[in-house]
């Protein structure tokens, strides 16, 4: 090794830089031996590799980790292969050498495939397609895609947005107001019977219990207001007893005597 260095030194360095990784160099070296990849001497291959890497190192070339890993591995391989044939360690080396040879064969096959592809006429390099293709496809975008899921998504989106933009407001309770009670009683002025129970003048469908009591209260308020103006009369015989409502007496208008 040492004697080869002075002569081949700089050339080898340039050479090394041109390789895409250690396998690349190994394949080149194997080819240099002009040997069948399956029968080549792994020992001599390893020696050549180590010589080149050592040389590169001497020239302070920055070596990538994989170059050094390969160097270490080849050193190990060489040491095994140099052991007497038949020993377990030597067989281990033979096995490892076969693995390496297989990898080199694989890479060699790829190189040959590249050469095969490379000699084929490539589109855009040796053969050319139509330079000005014509398009006869017209795109019609007048149709609208409609689907039910889309419609429902739209509805939900609108509802959700509406929900998000609204502040909470308790639903208003529909109650029969004093104003409405006044209107109802005024309509009845003149056709009122002599005396009848206040509750009979409730609207037909006041709703639930709450609406019922509210309507009764509104009716009482309206009755009190109208009695004050002498438009009708109210009377109650006993506390919590039924409240009776009656026709106003014309001469008593404005008089509040009849009110309990």
């Amino acid at each position, binding site marked *: 090794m040492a004697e080869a260095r002075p002569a081949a030194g700089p050339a080898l360095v340039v050479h090394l830089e041109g390789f895409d990784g250690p396998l690349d160099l190994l394949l080149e070296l194997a080819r240099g031996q002009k040997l069948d990849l399956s029968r080549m001497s792994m020992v001599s291959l390893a020696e050549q590799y180590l010589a080149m890497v050592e040389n590169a190192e001497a020239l302070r070339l920055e070596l990538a980790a994989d170059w050094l890993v390969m160097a270490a591995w080849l050193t190990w391989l060489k040491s095994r292969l140099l052991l007497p044939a038949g020993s377990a360690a030597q067989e281990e080396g033979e096995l490892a050498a076969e693995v390496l040879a297989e990898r080199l064969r694989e890479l060699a096959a790829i190189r040959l495939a590249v050469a095969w592809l490379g000699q084929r006429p490539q589109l855009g390099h040796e053969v050319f397609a139509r330079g000005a293709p014509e398009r*006869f496809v017209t795109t019609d975008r007048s149709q609208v*895609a409609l689907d039910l899921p889309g419609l429902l998504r*739209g*509805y*939900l989106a609108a509802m959700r947005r509406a929900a998000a933009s609204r502040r909470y407001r308790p*639903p208003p309770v529909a109650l029969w107001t004093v104003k409405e009670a006044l209107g109802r009683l005024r309509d009845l002025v003149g056709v009122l019977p002599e005396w009848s129970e206040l509750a009979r003048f409730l609207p037909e469908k006041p709703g639930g219990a709450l609406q019922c009591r509210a309507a009764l209260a509104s009716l009482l308020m309206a009755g009190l207001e109208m009695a004050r103006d002498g438009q009708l009369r109210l009377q109650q015989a006993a506390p919590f007893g039924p409240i009776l409502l009656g026709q106003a007496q014309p001469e008593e208008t404005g008089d509040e005597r009849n009110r309990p």
Partner: protein
Amino acid sequence: MSETDPETEILAAADRTDALRLAEAFLFAAAEPVSARALAPLLPPDQEPQAVLAELAGRYAGRGVELVEMAGGWQFRTAADLAPRLRRVISVPRRLPRAAMETLAIVAYHQPVTRAEIEAIRGAALAQATLDALLELGLVEPKGRRETPGRPTLWATTPVFLSRFGLGTLGDLPRREDLLIEPAVAQAEFAPQA
């Protein structure tokens, strides 16, 4: 002429064939029309480019592709009579914009409904263009007026709406209570702003 050596004649014919092949390939591969001047350097020196182009054009006459002279040079073009038969129309339906789809859904579920009500439910203004688009597609139609001040137009979906969505009747739409499961969403529905 008559004294031309037969060998010279054969060579000339080969040259012509070569020139025609080259011109054909170049015209085919070129992205732009090729002028006689651009073709000249490619041809054997004794071949006149204009004549080569004319001969090539003659060979393509009546074929599916023709060599035509246009501004700036010669170019292969599809024969004019074939173009209509080669034309294919690909339908790429567009999607309805979101606002239109939402409006359509609200009309479907709340019809008959006024524009103000649609806006209240969506919580957003309804652009005239959106309503116009739905009208144009025949998906909604006016359906009388509400007898309130201003007599606003009422909107409803059309039979086209049903057929486009594959519905037999409006009753085939999923129930609102099956859709509006979240309380907040349902809430909004029960308290529409005036």
